[in-house]
């Protein structure tokens, strides 16, 4: 039987919803599902993990060195647990992408990135070429499967009314001191989180300035939506980098995605192809974004977005 270990992602006492998406993926693989929480202070994250439907057990590894999610610190602790498992999963967020290859290399095994479909316990589908191609890959027999899970491909596991057992574990591996956390400059926002929001409004280069982006924020606030951006808008300094959507930014799957003044380059579309409904507002009727939009509206955003905001009042 498969024994699956999911590495929980958490920050500031909150379990990242991508962890619950990994649980759904683990259930598609089949087998027992443990979640590992590496933390300096495990509460309330361990409880949140134990409350996910489909989780059999939560392992809580408490250590002061686990205060920040440093791959160099986490990886040897995970590698030490690996012999008890057939599969190691983490979300393919920047957390998991940083961590899982380091774990895999310590174990001397290949890693599968961005697992989006399970075709068998060791056979998976993943995107390559910015999502232009899907490849089916197989992990060799006898090797632990180390994979990152593409969150947008998997719904979150629901909360359960009963808690899975929580076990404290102690790790005796030597932890390195060569990598030190200095600071995190977070975009602390009152708005919904871009990666888990059900509605997202994104702005592109066409906004022209950081001030003009206010239009996007205003529309988003009317809709209770998170705010995203194209790479061009981030590069131009209109918004911070953590708002970038696409191949090299965030891959998201909201119910509603509204792209304003975004042309629809392939690298941007990669980030939104699992969105439920895509709306595009662009003055160029030929813009490629209209090829994927469920609803397209041609016109000047500086006229249309205020009208949209008005209509939502």
């Amino acid at each position: 039987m498969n024994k699956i270990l999911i590495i929980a992602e958490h920050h500031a006492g909150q379990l990242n919803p991508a962890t619950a998406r990994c649980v759904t993926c683990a259930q598609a693989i089949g087998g027992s599902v443990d979640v590992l929480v590496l933390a300096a202070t495990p509460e309330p994250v361990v409880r949140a993990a134990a409350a996910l439907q489909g989780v059999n057990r939560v392992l809580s590894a408490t250590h002061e060195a686990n205060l920040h999610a440093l791959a160099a610190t986490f990886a040897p602790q995970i590698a030490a647990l690996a012999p008890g498992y057939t599969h190691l999963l983490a979300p393919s967020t920047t957390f998991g992408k940083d961590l899982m290859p380091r774990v895999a290399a310590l174990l001397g095994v290949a890693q599968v990135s961005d697992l989006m479909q399970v075709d068998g316990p060791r056979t998976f589908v993943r995107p390559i070429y910015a999502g232009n191609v899907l490849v089916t890959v197989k992990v060799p027999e006898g090797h632990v499967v180390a994979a990152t899970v593409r969150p947008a491909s998997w719904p979150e596991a629901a909360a359960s009314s009963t808690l899975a057992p929580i076990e404290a574990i102690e790790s005796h591996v030597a932890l390195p001191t060569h990598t030190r956390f200095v600071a995190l400059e977070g975009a602390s926002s009152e708005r919904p989180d871009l990666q888990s929001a059900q509605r997202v409004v994104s702005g592109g280069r066409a906004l022209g300035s950081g001030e003009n982006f206010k239009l996007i924020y205003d529309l988003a606030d009317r809709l209770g939506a998170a705010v995203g951006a194209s790479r061009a808008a981030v590069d131009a300094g209109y918004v911070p980098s953590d708002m970038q959507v696409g191949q090299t930014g965030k891959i998201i799957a909201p119910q509603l995605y509204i792209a304003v003044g975004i042309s629809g380059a392939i690298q941007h579309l990669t980030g939104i192809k699992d969105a439920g409904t895509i709306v595009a507002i662009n003055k160029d009727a030929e813009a490629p974004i209209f090829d994927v939009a469920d609803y397209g509206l041609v016109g000047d955003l500086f006229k249309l977005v205020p009208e949209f905001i008005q209509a939502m009042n």
Partner: protein
Amino acid sequence: MKILVGYKRVIDYNVRVQVKPDGSGVVTDGVKLSPNPFDEIALEEALRLREKGVASEVVVIGIGPADLQPHLRNGLAMGANRAIHVSTGDAVQPLTVARVLLKIVEREQPGLVMLGKQAIDDDSNQTGQMLAALWDRPQATFASKLDVIGTTAQVVREIDAGLETLEIDLPAVVTVDLRLNEPRFIKLPDIMKAKSKPIETIELASLGVESGDHLTASHFAPPLKRSKGVMVKDVAELVEALRTKGLV
């Protein structure tokens, strides 16, 4: 300090990649190849560190068949001092690349290894992390700012939660993100100069790198296409449609 830069050749990012009709791979015949954009950024940063006097030598390394040489000349024209060509006819996966890089690292003793955070062909985003693990050294992935301060480096990383700063002891592996810098354009005199720069060729088979833990790719397919929707004439019609679907 010496900086080793991974310099991969990939299908150009403007090419619409096509799957072969039998699903055995992607069409590469006659397709434009270019340096991986992230690797160009890594190389640019290494060159800037050399220009600032932080680094003394920049070495680019490529793994691939004999026709990789013109690609490595590109890296030399951008400004690398020399190139190492690890020659193989086989496609290599990240773990193998990391093992090859480790062999070169052991020989060259660089203070920094700089790689792109991912290559835009397989989008794996693994090699730098794997090398750091095998080498037992720090990694700083997704770098958007890099300062070398004596025997340490401060790296700003673009992560989902914002901008994280790490301090790492050197030697270390840094993988770069798009906003670290804008790579320079290669000028004609640089291309001439690059002709006389050395490219050393090493057979991959001679490095004694373990193999046999590859993923096997059995099938390639295009993704399901989203179908084109409808055009609405004004905001009122749009809002009406979204309301009907319960989306706003």
